[in-house]
Structure formats: structure tokens, C-alpha cells
């Protein structure tokens, strides 16, 4: 009997104006979203690829260890057209060097005026809002409409239990939503696959499937809410208004109000405070370096004997690159390097700690917003999909944590090669074997300028690049599929629980309801 009722409901729905309009709207919105977001993804991927090759080329040209400064890039998430999440909130690259610790920074701003009020039209947003509305519209008159027409009493006069009627209505309604959902996702997937740069791996298909599954669970939850409202109200127009009120409140207003409330409950100190404190730290650093310099003045030398010199600042022994210099100068620079670089790195650690506080307060705030948002099934749904798509905040924050780990690995690598606090940091020459200024003067007096030039050498052009083939690569291991699915489990689980709760609620309400018109 359940199937009969379900089939009747399904056929009823499919033949209505409502369904047709819903189908057309879905097709238009899904294809619009897919087209726009695919192009956007293509652009982002192209920017990522050019950034990666640009950065790789820069590193390959390093001739001394001081030049190893890497910028690591975050690959745009493949499923970000499906669920944008925090993808565009955070920066897509991080600078990694000896004295710069990568920390959270924000992404570039949106420049389109009208994207301001409706931030994203990713697939999940469309399902959350438009299909959610449709689900409610299919269910609001499932009971009140039938009661008004007197049909409900007729159905129950047969040997069919109320539970069976309920289940039949529910199945019929949810099965109506299924083609809308599947056709929409199929159209979007088709548009993505026509893009030359998008290629799905098996795990991506898996996650897309999981997102579809969670979408179905979400829509069924909303359908059940509509059914409950329908059972509890006297006539269709009242249930319509209540359903729309519920939609506005729970799908649109509450998820955003939660974010605002979180902002109030856990206000974040603005990043500029950490910036100002870091600037203070750097001033301290400069003072220390200046003090060291005043205690260790540069030995007397001649400029003509120095070649290929690029330093932190004129008289300070904090070299970046020196091709050739007399021994006493080089030794002075080397001692200075050991002090200044160490100090710089220590101060970088202190600055990094400040920014990590900022990062963790942001993460806290995001968590509070997420918890408050659990009041709304729409928020639960969006958060679960963000985890599946890999665009939730903790996955994106992981990028910065990975960048910090990579920096440590790089520093360890350079230290192993004895390139950090040693001459190899800034010069290819062997310092012990260098002549002093006096030696060079003698050579010049005896054998002339040409001899001096041949001792000094031709310059950086003659130095070959460092052999960095065993340098650790930036290769953050992507999260395992199992772990990612696990992380979405709480939200998805609550959605399933809500479904059961609402169904039981509907059953109880229906048992007590008066079915006469």
C-alpha cells in the first residue's frame, strides 16, 4: 500500500506546473553556475600553474644558499565549483624563507559589485536555497491540501495505517525531488567535463557522490519539516506562509546570524595589531644589528677588490651575495652573518608566534560560528559539503601549517649541506684560501691589473647554480579520502538524525491529527 500511495504522490507531483517550473529553474541555475564557476576555476588553475613554474624557475637559479626563498602555492580545489566554502577567503600562496614564517593571510578581494550581496552561486548553495524551497513547496500541501479536499479521510477509511500513509507521502515527495537533483548535477558535471583542464579522479567522483547523497538527506529533512507543518495547520495557505517563514528563517537568516554572533562572542584582534607588534620586533632586531655593527667595524679595504656584492645594508655585516672580497672582509662578513642571520631567524620565530595566535583566534571564531549554525539544517548541509569538497576552513588552514613544516624541512636541508651559518650562504669562494688586501696590492704592484683581475674572476656569470636536486619538494600529501569522509561525519550524522527526528515527529503529529475537512 505504501508504494501505491508513493506512486500516486509521485505522479501527481510530476504532472504539475510546479515541477515543470522547478525543473526549468534548476536547469537554468545549475548551468549558469557551472559555466561561471568553471571559467573561474580555469582562471585560478592557470594562475596557479604559472605561479608554480615561475617560482620553480626562480629557485633553480640559486647560486648561493641565501637565494633559496620559495613561494609555495595552493592548488585550487577541484570541487570548489561544487562548494566554494572558504576557498577564496584565504591566500593561495605563502612565502617561505629563512626569516619569513608563513602564516595565514587573506585572499584577494572580489571586484564585482553585484557579487557583493549574493556571494557565491556554487552548486551546493543552489541546492541549499532553491531546491530547499522547492522541497518545502512540494510538501506544504501534502496533508493540509488533501485534508481540505476531503481526500485524506477517504484514504484513511481503507485498511491502511497512518504510518503507511505518512511513509508513502514521504517517499513520493522525496522521489519527486530526486530527478531535479540528479538532472541538475548531471548537467553541471557535463559542463565541467567539457572543460579541458578539469579531470576527475576516482576520489573526486566519490566525493561528488557523497555530496549528492548528503544533498538528498538535506532535501528529505526539509521535506519532512514541510510535512509536519502541513499536518499541524488547518489550511493550505497558512501552511504555505509558515513554510516560507521557516525557509527564510532557517535557510537564509540563521546561518548568517550565527556568523555575526560568533563575531561578537569572539572578536578577533585585527591583524594590524600583530603587524604592529611584528614591526616593533623588527625595530628591536635592527637596533641589535646596529649595535653589533658598531662593535665590529668593517676592516679597511679597497672597493676595487670587491666584486658582485649585494648586502642587507652598506656597512652592516649581513651579506646576501658576495662574489669576491679580500679575506679579512669576508671573515668579517662571515662573523657578522652568524650573528645577524641567527638573530633574524629568532625574531622571525617570535613574530610567527604572534601570528599563530591570530590564526588560532580566527579558527576559534569559525568554529563558534559553525556550532551556532548547527541550529539550521542548511548550515549543517553546507558545512558537510565543504568538507567533502576540501574547501572547509580547517583544510585550508592546513596549507599554512604545511608551509611552516616545509620551511623547517628546508632549513634542515640547508643546515645539513652546511649552507646556513657559513660562507656557503653568501659566497661560492673558499674563504680560507682568499688573498688579503695586502696580498692583492702586492700582486697589482708586481704583475699589474690583469693579474689581479684573473685572481678575482669574472663574476656571478661564471658561477653555476647550486645542485638542489635533493632539496625537499613542496609536496603536501592530500588528505586521505577516508579521513575527509570522517570529518564530515558529525554534520552528516546530525542531518540523518534530524531526518529520523522529524519523521517520528510527523508520525506523532499525524496520529493525533483530525483528518476531516
Amino acid at each position, binding site marked *: 500500500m505504501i508504494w501505491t500511495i508513493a506512486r500516486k504522490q509521485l505522479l501527481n507531483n510530476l504532472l504539475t506546473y*510546479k515541477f515543470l*517550473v522547478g525543473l526549468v*529553474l534548476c536547469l537554468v*541555475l545549475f548551468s*549558469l553556475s557551472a*559555466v*561561471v564557476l568553471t571559467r573561474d576555476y580555469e*582562471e585560478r588553475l592557470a*594562475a596557479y600553474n*604559472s605561479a608554480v613554474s615561475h617560482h620553480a624557475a626562480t629557485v633553480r637559479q640559486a647560486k648561493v644558499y641565501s637565494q633559496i626563498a620559495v613561494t609555495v602555492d595552493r592548488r585550487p580545489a577541484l570541487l570548489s565549483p561544487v562548494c566554494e566554502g572558504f576557498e577564496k*577567503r584565504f591566500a593561495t600562496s605563502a612565502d617561505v624563507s629563512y626569516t619569513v614564517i608563513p602564516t595565514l*593571510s*587573506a585572499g*584577494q*578581494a*572580489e571586484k*564585482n*559589485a*553585484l*557579487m*557583493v*550581496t*549574493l*556571494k*557565491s552561486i556554487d552548486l551546493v*548553495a543552489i541546492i*541549499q536555497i*532553491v531546491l530547499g*524551497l522547492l522541497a518545502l513547496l512540494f510538501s506544504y500541501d501534502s496533508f493540509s491540501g488533501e485534508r481540505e479536499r476531503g481526500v485524506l479521510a477517504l484514504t484513511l477509511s481503507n485498511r491502511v495505517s497512518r504510518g503507511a500513509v505518512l511513509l508513502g507521502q514521504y517517499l513520493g515527495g522525496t522521489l519527486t525531488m530526486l530527478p531535479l537533483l540528479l538532472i541538475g548535477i548531471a548537467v553541471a558535471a557535463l559542463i565541467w567535463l567539457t572543460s579541458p583542464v578539469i579531470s576527475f579522479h576516482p576520489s573526486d567522483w566519490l566525493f561528488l557522490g557523497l555530496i549528492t547523497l548528503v544533498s538528498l538527506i538535506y532535501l528529505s529533512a526539509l521535506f519532512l519539516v514541510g510535512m509536519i507543518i502541513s499536518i499541524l495547520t488547518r489550511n493550505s495557505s*497558512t501552511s*504555505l*506562509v*509558515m513554510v*516560507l*517563514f521557516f525557509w527564510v528563517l532557517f535557510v*537564509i*537568516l540563521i*546561518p*548568517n*546570524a550565527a*556568523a*555575526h554572533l*560568533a*563575531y*561578537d562572542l569572539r572578536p578577533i584582534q*585585527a*591583524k*594590524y595589531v600583530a603587524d*604592529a607588534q611584528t*614591526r616593533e620586533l623588527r625595530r628591536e632586531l635592527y637596533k641589535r644589528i646596529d649595535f653589533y655593527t658598531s662593535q665590529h667595524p668593517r676592516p679597511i679595504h*679597497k*672597493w*676595487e677588490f670587491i666584486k*658582485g656584492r649585494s648586502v*642587507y*645594508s*652598506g656597512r652592516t655585516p649581513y651579506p646576501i651575495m658576495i662574489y669576491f672580497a679580500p679575506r679579512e672582509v669576508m671573515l668579517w662578513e662571515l662573523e657578522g652573518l652568524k650573528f645577524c642571520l641567527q638573530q633574524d631567524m629568532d625574531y622571525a620565530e617570535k613574530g610567527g608566534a604572534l601570528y599563530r595566535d591570530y590564526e588560532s583566534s580566527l579558527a576559534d571564531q*569559525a568554529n563558534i560560528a559553525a556550532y551556532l549554525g548547527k541550529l539550521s539544517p542548511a548550515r549543517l548541509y553546507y558545512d558537510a559539503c565543504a568538507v567533502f569538497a576540501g574547501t572547509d576552513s580547517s583544510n585550508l588552514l592546513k596549507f599554512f601549517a604545511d608551509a611552516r613544516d616545509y620551511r623547517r624541512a628546508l632549513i634542515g636541508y640547508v643546515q645539513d649541506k652546511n649552507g646556513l651559518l657559513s660562507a656557503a650562504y653568501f659566497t661560492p669562494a673558499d674563504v680560507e684560501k682568499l688573498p688579503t688586501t695586502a696580498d692583492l696590492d702586492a700582486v697589482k704592484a708586481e704583475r699589474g691589473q690583469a693579474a689581479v683581475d684573473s685572481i678575482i674572476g669574472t663574476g*656571478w*656569470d661564471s658561477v653555476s647554480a647550486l645542485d638542489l636536486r635533493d632539496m625537499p619538494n613542496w609536496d603536501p600529501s592530500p588528505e586521505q579520502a577516508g579521513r575527509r569522509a570522517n570529518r564530515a561525519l558529525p554534520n552528516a550524522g546530525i542531518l540523518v538524525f534530524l531526518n529520523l527526528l522529524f519523521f517520528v515527529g510527523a508520525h506523532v503529529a499525524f496520529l493525533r491529527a483530525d483528518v476531516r475537512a
Partner: protein
Amino acid sequence: MIWIIAQKEIRDNLLSLRFLLLFLLAVVFIPASLYTNYRAYQARLSDQQQVEKSNREYLRNLQVTQIFTAANFAIDIYWPPSPASVFAEGFEDIHPRHLVVGKNSVEYGAPLAVGSSMGLFGSIDYLFVVEFVFSLFAILMSFDAITREKENGTLRSILANAVSRPVLATGKLVGGYVTLALPLVVSFLVGLLTLQLSGMSVFEPEFLARAEWVLVSSLLYIAVFFLLGLLVSSSVSSTYAALVLSLAVWLTVVLVLPRAGSLAAQLWRPVKSDQVVWLEKLSAANAIEMEKGKAVQDAGLFPKTNPSAEEWGKLQKRRSEVAAPFEDRAVQAIRRIEGDYRRRKAEQVDLGLTLARLSPAGAFVNFATEMSDTGIRAADRFTNDAEQYREVLQQELFSKILRYVIPGVGITMGLTGPINPATLSEFRLARVRARDSVAGVDIAILLSWFLAAAVLTYGALARYDVR
């Protein structure tokens, strides 16, 4: 007679569930959104003042050598938040508030905070509540105005009296609109009161003028949707069909059309991405730097021996003479690339905006964000003023620093004149008066939608079968 019908409508609506729910939503969310946005504005303002203060300190204590050692010395400027942003957040939270004015270009600085608006719809500001919630409820109030009466049989009774159809339509319009506008006006006033109590000076003439314009445009906006609902109701014969059609109309006008506008603009007038332009500028600047360094080297101006102090002065002068044409070329090249990109981007954005403004939602959003001084024109003004500031700095600062890239040797720098960081001109953003922010075109668009819907409603009702 119009007034009698209107009275009946008002009485009917005031006692209905719809009105109650709308009133509840409005009176809770509008003052709440105004208050939260005010707090956000205060936070942004204090952030800004703090950071500007610390910047001034920094500039005052800056050593000239620090200017040298920075690879690309630049000054940070910030976009001051607008008090009227309590109504429409617009670009306030997402457009770069921080620009870095350097020698070659004005770049986006790091955002002051990772956006606080972490919702799908951005944050709930007043604009959002009116644009989405009120328009939806406006359609809900009117979608069954005619069809419900037809189904109840009362439409025949009314028209059996000497009531002409236009009179009926006008009465419904007046009555229904009053009950719709009432929650809006009441919650708006409650919101202003809340702001006043929280310490904002609401009666300051500029702010008050902007508030008035925002209210007027909101009332016009919801009138358009009310009429659209009424139009749908007068065109179909069953409440059910009216519901489906009016919701479809709402979704299309509010969600689809504005987006379709910007998409069409992107397809019609594509523009190179930021990244590509930045790379172009970089390679042009580098190429000219190389040539400049070589020219200075060829002129023999990089001595092998250490010159004396006065020789150094003469040397610098000679160097800057040789370098001058290259510097000019660099500036011209960058200006050309930038100008080209900006022009194309502006064309694309304008086109997208124009197309989107054809829909009442787009027009309303544009009007409200301009009124709140957080719209695209305000953002453009900031960027343009930043460019002008760069010209000023070019004179005072950048033209005095010369940087030479000598091929095969390295990088060296020089000064052609004295620099005193503490006396550099400060950046000031000109504020626009309320009456200059009025985007008349948007009001005209809303009015034409209103009139078109009115005319079509009267027409549809004239042919309506009332049995």
C-alpha cells in the same frame, strides 16, 4: 470607494499570519542588523585610526637607509569606513581597504582582517533584509489578492456593485501596500533609534539625508514587487498557479537576472586577469632596468676605485642624468599597461552593472550601496585617489630614489635629493555629499518597473474572468 476597499484590505491583512510573521522578522532583524553593522563600523574605524597612527610613527622614525634597503619602498594607505555602511555593507568588507603605493604601481595590500562575513549571503545588512526578505513577503502578500477572492466568490460580489476594475486594483494596491510598508517603516525607525542609543549621531545632516534616501528607495523597491505579485494574481485563475508563477518571478528577478548581467558582460568583454597584467608590468620594468643599468655602466659611471665624497656627489648627478630617460620610459610603459587594463576592466564592470541594473534588485542594490558610500563608485574613487597620491609621491619621494641594476654586478642605489620621511604629504580621501551620491538612474529604473507593472496589472484585470 478606493478607500473602502483599501480599508478592508488593511483590516484583512493586519489580522493575518503573514503580516504577523513579516512584522516579527522585520522588527527583529532590521534593528539587529543596523546595530551589528554599526559595531563593525566602529571596529573598522578604530582599526584604521590605530594603524594610521602607527604608520605615522613609523614614517617619522624611518631611517633613510631603510628606504634604500627595501626592494620596493612603498607607502600604505587605507580606505576610511563610511558611517552610512550600516545600511549596505557593499564593498566595505571585501574591497581592498589597504593599498600599497609604490614607485611603479599601486598594489593591493594585505587585507586588514580575514573577512568577518562568513556566510553564504555575505553578512545580513539592512540591504539584504529588504532585497530578499521584504521582496519575498511583498510578493506573498499580493500573489493571491485577486485569485483568492475569485475562488471565494467575493470578487463577483464586489464587481457587481458599481466598482470599476481600476478602482478595485487601486484599492488593493493601496491597502496591501500600506500593510507591507508599515513593518518596514516601523522597524527602520526602531533601528535608527537603536543606533542613536548606541552612540551614533543619527541626526547629523549627511547621515540623515542618506538614511532618508535609503528608506525611500526601499519603499519603492517593495512596491515594485507588490505590483508584480498583483500582476501575477490578475493573470492566472488559480491561487496555486499564482503561487508557482510568482515564486518563479521572484527567483528570476532577484537571483538570476543580476548574476546573468555580470556573466554576459564577462563573456562579451573579456579582460586579461590581474595576474597576467602584473607579470606584464614586471617584465617591462625589468627590461628597462636592465637597459638603464647597462647605459650607466657603458658611460663608465661605476668606478672601480672608491671615490671621495665630492666626487661621489658629481657621480650621482651624472648617473641620474643618464638614467633619466630610462626612468621616464619605465614610468610611461607601466602607465600604459595599467591604463589599458583599468580601462578594459572598467568597461566590463560598467557593462555588467548596467545589465544587472535592468532588474529592480540590481538597481536597488546599486542605489543603496552608492547611498551608503560603499558601492562601486566609492571603491573606484579610492583607487583613483590612490593613483593621484602616487603622482604626488613620485614628485616628493620616488623620483629622488634611483635604483640601478648593473648586469653581472649587482644592485646599487642612490639619492638625487634630500628625503624627509616625516614631511611627506598624507593621503586624504575626499568624502562625497549625500546629494551627489544619488544614483537617479536607479530610481528611474525602479519607477519604470512600477509603472509598467501597474499598467499591465490594470490591463490584465480588465480582461480577467471573475466567475
